């Protein structure tokens, strides 16, 4: 394995009362690679995301981002550090237009505050210009440029998911966590998604995704980590994982979805 490690977890554990969702998981996510986390339902994938983004506090173990300890960093500060995520249920800002959603993503990369905003000072105006331009850039990147002034919720699901990704990209992250980006998409949309993910990689952003769609995962992932019942049971290339007996057993053991 070449390249440096952007995210590392050591003995990462999360317990909800008596239920252990993640059990001493050690991970090493390489920079600029596309890594997928897969596993049967209840394996702890979303919990992992929530720990990395700070939504849940850690029960045990450490998370290191670019070498620095992440555990105590409040969730809203992680975006400016370079970690951003998308949500399974999208969570767009329904009270804004498509463009405004992406502009919101520029929040951690801008700095003018209440006072400058209230008085519409030059600093505010300058930053607004930059925010607008950047937002349009990201919107075009995901192919939604023509929908800029539409209400965010007027888009069909597939495009809403793209919008959510554009919003996340606008935070200019180092690491982007995609939570089931393919859910609810048709075949064409999934292909567009794969292309988009590859362009994200080309922007030197590390991609970590949770996904249930195996063909999608196997098509783009350069590295696959398999979780089951809160533990890491295997990792390797897509080809290696598909042949791994432990992985097959884990999936066969679960109920039909």
């Amino acid at each position, binding site marked *: 394995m070449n390249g440096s490690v952007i995210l590392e977890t050591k003995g990462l554990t999360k317990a909800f009362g008596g239920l252990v969702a993640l059990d001493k998981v050690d991970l090493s996510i390489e920079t600029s690679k596309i890594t997928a986390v897969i596993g049967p339902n209840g394996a702890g994938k979303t919990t992992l995301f929530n720990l990395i983004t700070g939504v849940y506090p850690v029960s045990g173990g450490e998370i290191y981002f670019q070498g620095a300890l992440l555990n105590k960093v409040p969730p809203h500060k992680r975006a400016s550090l370079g970690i951003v995520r998308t949500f399974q249920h999208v969570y767009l800002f329904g009270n804004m237009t498509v463009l405004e959603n992406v502009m919101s993503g520029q929040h951690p990369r801008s700095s003018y505050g209440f006072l400058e905003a209230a008085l519409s000072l030059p600093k505010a105006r300058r930053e607004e210009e930059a925010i607008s331009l950047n937002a349009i850039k990201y919107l075009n990147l995901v192919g939604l440029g023509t929908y800029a002034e539409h209400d965010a919720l007027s888009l069909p699901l597939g495009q809403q998911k793209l919008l959510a990704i554009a*919003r996340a990209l606008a935070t200019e992250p180092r690491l982007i966590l995609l939570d089931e980006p393919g859910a609810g998409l048709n075949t064409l949309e999934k292909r567009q998604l794969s292309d988009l993910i590859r362009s994200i990689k080309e922007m030197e952003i590390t991609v970590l995704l949770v996904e249930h769609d195996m063909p999608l995962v196997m098509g783009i992932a350069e590295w696959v980590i398999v979780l089951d019942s809160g533990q890491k049971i295997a990792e390797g290339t897509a080809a290696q994982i598909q042949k791994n007996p432990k992985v097959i057993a884990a999936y066969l053991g679960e109920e039909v979805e």
Partner: protein
Amino acid sequence: MIARLKSNWSYLAIATLFAFLILAPFDWFLGQYTTLMIVIGIYTIVTVGLCLLMGYTGQVSLGQAAFFGMGAYISAILSTTYGFNPWLAMLVAAVATGAFAYIIGYPIFRLKGNYLAMATLGLGLIMWIVFKQLNQFFGEPDGISGIPYLSIGGFVFNTSFRRYFLVWFFCLAVLLISQNIVRSRTGRALRAIHGSEAAAESIGINVDQFKVKILVLSAVYASLAGSLFAHHLRYVGAQPFDFMASVKLVVMAVIGGLASVWGAIFGAGATHVLSDELLLRFGDWDVIIYGLILVLVMIFMPEGLFVRLKDILERLRLRYRRRGVEP
């Protein structure tokens, strides 16, 4: 100093509003309603704050009259019993009210939805009881009187004509500031919080801090309005700051369109005129009709009367645009 607006029509609308407001207090125009418009201007200031808090950020306050009253009472007490300069008293009131909002902000916003509503309701009621106590302490049993007029140098705001311009000066300043905030990164952050707190947090917005900040801002606005109120009536009692007052403020915000800054003028004006008119025309039936109107408006026009009107105008405008006729 003013952030760019949506279209040239908006500039025209605001210019018209300005012209109307400037000409209004003259006798040959609407002079007889000057006092009414002073009160509307004062309520507009409070309403804008409430719109920012409820409409844009998606929170709830059923006790906004508490901040309104705090401004009034602090101004009243400091300028009568302690002989403060009224402007200084106003400033102190605003700072104190803002600080109070800051202190209760963090614990209060842990509550959501109905519980938040009840907490603000309870606070409003408690402050009202405090105000009644203050009446006994600092003034005659029912209120504090003898509050001086505001003045700048020798120029005293002792006529409605003068106070009208004073109040609307502040009101327009508040409106412009709020307009700027709404169209900025801050405004987007507030709307993001309303849209999805989880997503807002994930893109770097400090949700708790923003909520408290906007509460403080709304409290400062309300306090400012309260001080102006005190120096207008020269008397404060507890009654204008009771639970129904908080309800009326919410109604003003709702009718004006929760997510509309300029709509606040309409909301405050319509609601105030309505409740006064109803009282005049229908005597005791005013409460009945008021309740009925509340229910009907909330059922059929929850986004606010003003916003609905704006929508209709917007649709007309687009229709003309499509026909190739530039408006």
